[in-house]
């Protein structure tokens, strides 16, 4: 695995082609890193092979088929072995039947021969079963793994607008139960169709022996199917209801744990107990109903095959007395009744699994069919080294795509020179943060254009654009890895020395060094949580490590102590020549970082100038400043 950590490294041009072809996720291969998307982890498992069929008009099985087909070299032989094993199972009672008749009743053949046959067939069947089950599980979990990987790859491709509306709980349930239900159906349905083959063979064999006895013997078996369907029809909705009510109980408990202070404050203990009792009563009703449904069906389902055995015994026995069939036949039929109930039991199950898998597959497709709204053009080129000139040209933008969307940016125009520092100032909701999100192309503008060094951001690869932009927000997200890994997040595998240097600049080194595990402290582990200010400092270090040409601080020091902030500012000012900087400021102290202040109002530039100029000439500026955070009182 090549380490391509140095952004300006050797293979720059050689890999250009790879990052060019990112227009559709279907074309993107994830096996290696690129110049702008470094990889510092070795792929230890085979990448997923199959892909869902892109044609949305096809049925779900057809769309999933390529994923299964990718594993046909294991799957098809597995099915063949399963078929043979099932046929051997049909053979066994037939052999015992001959044994009873020929060796015991007629005493015309040697018993040993049959015993050996039983042993050989039985053991062979067990071996085959072992092998085909292994093959089946292997295929099943490969499909599972492929689906998981495809889903993750696709999710990583999706744009911010998807994550704005996404509920992570739903996505996770798709990645969990939906994938499982699809995988189960895809692998077990073919297997169960094998038992149908077995059924036909056994049934035909029985018919050749005695037609009426065969019909009488399997007479109760359709009842097993019918009752099974009825039971599931009732149990399924019930289990949804029970699950929902279990969740209600859990919600009440969860709320009482997390909201314990409120409950205690209002002395609402008894009220909450009654609420729980209410939820538990509903749960109890549904559970009892489930119990009763089982009680009505299960004993019947269990006893129907016994009814078959009884019919074979009485009618078959009568036939033996009448000398139409032999004792051995009686044994074989008894064995077949038990054997043949299996398809009746599983058939209904498979139909139901199929229904569920269809719904699950559609939910998975829903994600996989979501196109990233921000995607590279097919002819997008990498943005090589830049000077850092930024131009917003009549930008119009609104979030979402509903009818009620309101423009956040309304003909926003601004030019920022290379190396310049600009502060964006304005009331909450005036569009400051949106400006920088558009710059990094987290969203695409509705009208107008944004240019970096004269290149429209939509004409270059997003990865190369973002590689030049370092952005810190006010509530930075940290991952549950070590602090070192968090700081090196954009440069996986960076040297510890570089990590520490970035932390020192961001004034994070001091508090990190005091932790017992230092840079190896895992965020969130053992109750170790960082304060808001500490998180911001780690996020600043994370960004400084990437050595960006364009630095964006979106209220990035809001939770940091004023004195510490001063030191960070000093460090930033020292390197100010290296980057173009955009600061979104909620504090006077932050505005001081900038050469120029841009006052925003209602998605437009209202005024621009130095802090002094605006203070002197722009009453709206003074008004906005008066409302800024008073900062660091405590």
């Amino acid at each position, binding site marked *: 695995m090549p380490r391509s950590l140095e952004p300006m490294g050797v293979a720059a041009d050689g890999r250009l082609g790879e990052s060019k072809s990112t227009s559709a996720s279907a074309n993107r291969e994830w096996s290696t890193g690129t110049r702008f998307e470094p990889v510092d982890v070795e792929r230890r498992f085979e990448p997923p092979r199959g892909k869902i069929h892109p044609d949305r008009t096809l049925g779900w099985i057809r769309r999933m088929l390529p994923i299964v087909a990718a594993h046909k070299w294991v799957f098809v032989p597995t099915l063949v072995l399963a078929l043979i094993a099932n046929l051997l199972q049909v053979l066994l009672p037939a052999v015992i039947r001959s044994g009873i008749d020929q060796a015991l009743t007629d005493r015309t053949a040697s018993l040993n021969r049959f015993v050996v046959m039983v042993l050989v067939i039985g053991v062979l069947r067990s071996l085959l079963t072992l092998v085909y089950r292994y093959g089946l599980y292997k295929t099943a979990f490969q499909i599972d793994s492929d689906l998981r990987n495809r889903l993750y790859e696709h999710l990583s491709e999706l744009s911010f607008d998807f994550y704005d509306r996404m509920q992570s709980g739903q996505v996770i349930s798709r990645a969990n139960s939906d994938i499982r239900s699809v995988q189960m159906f895809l692998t077990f349905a073919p297997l169960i169709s094998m038992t149908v083959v077995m059924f036909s063979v056994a049934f035909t064999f029985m018919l050749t022996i005695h037609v009426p006895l065969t019909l009488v013997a399997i007479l109760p078996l359709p009842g097993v199917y019918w009752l099974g369907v009825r039971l599931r029809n009732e149990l399924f909705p019930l289990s949804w209801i029970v699950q929902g009510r279990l969740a209600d109980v859990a919600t009440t408990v969860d709320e009482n744990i997390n909201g314990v202070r409120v409950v205690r404050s209002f002395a609402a203990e*008894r009220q909450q107990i009654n609420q729980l009792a209410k939820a538990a009563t509903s749960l109890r009703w549904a559970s009892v109903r489930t119990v009763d449904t089982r009680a009505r069906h299960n004993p019947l389902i269990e006893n129907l095959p*016994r009814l078959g055995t009884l019919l074979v015994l009485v009618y078959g026995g009568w036939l033996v007395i009448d000398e139409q069939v032999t004792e051995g036949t009686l044994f074989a039929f008894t064995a077949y009744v038990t054997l043949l109930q299996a398809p009746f039991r599983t058939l209904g199950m498979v139909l139901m699994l199929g229904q569920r898998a269809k719904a699950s597959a559609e939910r998975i497709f829903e994600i996989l069919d979501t196109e990233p709204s921000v995607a590279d053009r097919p002819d997008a080129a990498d943005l090589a080294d830049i000077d850092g000139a930024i131009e917003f040209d009549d930008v119009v933008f609104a979030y979402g795509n509903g009818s009620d969307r309101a423009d956040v940016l309304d003909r926003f125009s601004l030019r920022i020179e290379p190396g310049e520092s600009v502060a964006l100032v304005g009331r909450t909701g005036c569009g400051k943060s949106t400006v920088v999100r558009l710059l990094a192309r987290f969203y695409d503008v509705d009208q107008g254009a944004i240019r970096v060094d004269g290149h429209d951001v939509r004409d270059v690869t997003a990865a190369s654009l973002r590689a030049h932009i370092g952005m810190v927000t006010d509530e930075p997200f940290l991952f549950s890895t070590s602090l070192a890994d968090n700081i090196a*997040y954009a440069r996986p595998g960076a040297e510890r020395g570089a990590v520490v240097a970035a932390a020192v600049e961001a004034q994070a080194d001091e508090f990190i060094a005091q932790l017992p595990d230092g840079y190896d402290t895992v965020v969130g582990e053992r109750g170790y949580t960082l304060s808001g200010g500490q998180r911001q400092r780690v996020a600043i270090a994370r960004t400084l490590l990437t050595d960006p040409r364009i630095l964006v601080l979106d209220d990035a020091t809001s939770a940091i102590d004023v004195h510490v902030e001063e030191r960070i500012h000093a460090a930033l000012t020292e390197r100010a020549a290296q980057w173009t900087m955009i600061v979104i400021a909620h504090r006077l102290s932050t505005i001081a970082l900038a050469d120029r202040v841009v006052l925003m109002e209602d998605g437009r530039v209202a005024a621009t100038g130095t802090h002094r100029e605006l203070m002197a000439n722009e009453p709206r500026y003074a008004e906005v400043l008066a409302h800024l955070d008073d900062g660091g*009182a405590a």
Partner: protein
Amino acid sequence: MSFGGPAGSPFGGPSASATSAAAGLPFAGMPSELAERAERILAQEPEHPDPDVAFSQSEYDRRPFTLRRFLGPHRLGLAGAAALVIVETVALQAGPLLTQIGLDRAILPRDATVLWWVGLAYLASIVVNLAASAARVSYTGRLGEKLMYELRVRVFSHFQRQSLDFYTEEKTGRLMTRMTSDIDALAALFQDGLVNLAVQGLTLVIITGVMFALSPTLAVVTLVVVLPGMLALTFWFKGASERGYGAVRDRIAAVLADLSESLAGMRVITATNRRRHNVIQHANIVGEHTVANVRASTVGAIYGPANEAIGVLGQAALLLVGGRMVLDGSLTVGELFAFLLYLTAFFAPIQQLVQLYNSYQQGQAAVVKLRQLLQTEPTVVEARDAFVLPPLEGRIEFEGVTFGYDREQSVLRDVNLVVEPGETLAVVGPTGAGKSTVAKLVTRFYDPDQGRILLDGHDVRDVTLHSLRHQLGVVPQEAFLFHGSIADNVAFGRPDATAEDIVDACRQVGLGDLIDRLGSGVDTPVHERGSSLSSGERQLLALARAFLAQPRVLILDEATSNLDLRSETVIERALDVVLEGRTAIVIAHRLATAMRADRIAVIDDGRVVELGTHAELVAAGGRYADMYATWSAHS
């Protein structure tokens, strides 16, 4: 959310309508034909009467929780269930024996009359098994649900007795499992475990007994050939599959944790160009999961066929030995037949018993954990002779209060403080100085180690917790919203409040715009712990909640610290309304909030270092004056 902008920005989260569509449906995600059936089932559900559970802070069953004590009151019922189990099992295992009789007495001697009788007896055994089994499932199921209901209420009630220190952050997950998986494990033990144990054990006894009665030689042959291998195999399987599935559980947890963290951090992943790295990293985690899965299922893939192979061995042995006995006339064909049938019936109970041992262990572990939980005594206990606190004037007094969350380190040291009725006292100081602790002691979330806290001259430890907290209103830093509507949340402290009261409270604190804007007004549900509301709105809801409860004393614990400016202005205005005529302690993060109070107490290092009005403290030139100077310089 990282780049999502401040909470409450109109662009941050999902649109309100989309969320309600997803969350509002009763059967979201259920296939439509199932939803119809579910509706039909629910239509049959009777109206459950409103529960009225007795609750006492100090009086409850303190005897250790054991399985015996838990099931004890239902001894008779369980005996009945056991009787049903016996009937059920005997009727079931009569089958092969009847087959044997049919063969030996009717079919081989060619006697059709006996055959009819055997058939009738067989039919009877089916009917009896059917009835007994249905009755047993229904009965034990109902009893189990009753027990689970009682246990849920009991455990939850004990949660409610516990003091705040019980709910430390690391514990919440484990507390949750007490009420969920532990009770489920107990339910499983009771409903499937105990009864099944009886059924399977009895089955083994009956089969072995019948086999020995039919032919001791053949019985010994069967047991010798089948039993050791089967037992060894089953114990191997149990151990190996437990280890295997333990690994699978860990791995799937890792997969989902990585996915969930990636989803939460996808904006950072995008911004830092980490996608390729993370895709491979995720593939590695998924790969580990797949390996664990294949490994665990291989255990199952071996177990089933190996068992069948042992069964075939048994069959072969029976045919060989039994066949010879038939040939020399020491065994009838019917008996051989019965042996072959019993051999098949022999496997299931042994396999199940080993599995049941598992569920028994889990159930026992759950019992132990529940016992520990139910024996946990709250640290803040109501005095036996606690009296109801009379309606408050609102005088609060700290008298030499020293307190620490753990023994070694005191957070407050010898604090003396008086808040007069109707006065607003702001408490300021650096983070960790003990400001919030002041609030927690007044509400008796904790008891002081030394000294006392008096309300209108009554020690808070002498009055009932209910009467104390009922007269105090607390607005915490993080406004916690319960699942339900805005109205439910506002009326939390006063469930009997009318709709007008609720709307009025909302308007008083400045939520009028919000409820006018929302389609269903105060009946609009708050989702996912209030994610569809901005943090300012949530804070205002918490304030409305306190306001509606009409407490005599109000405690604001950094209630305005997480707000943007516009919300803060609204809240400051609301506070003026709420504080009117009430005693209040305001734990303040921002000086702007503190300045509005009648008096200010500066706390540092667990002590009150300064106390006075804003003007006095500024004039005194101490700690507060410094803070004020820094603050003014930056604004």
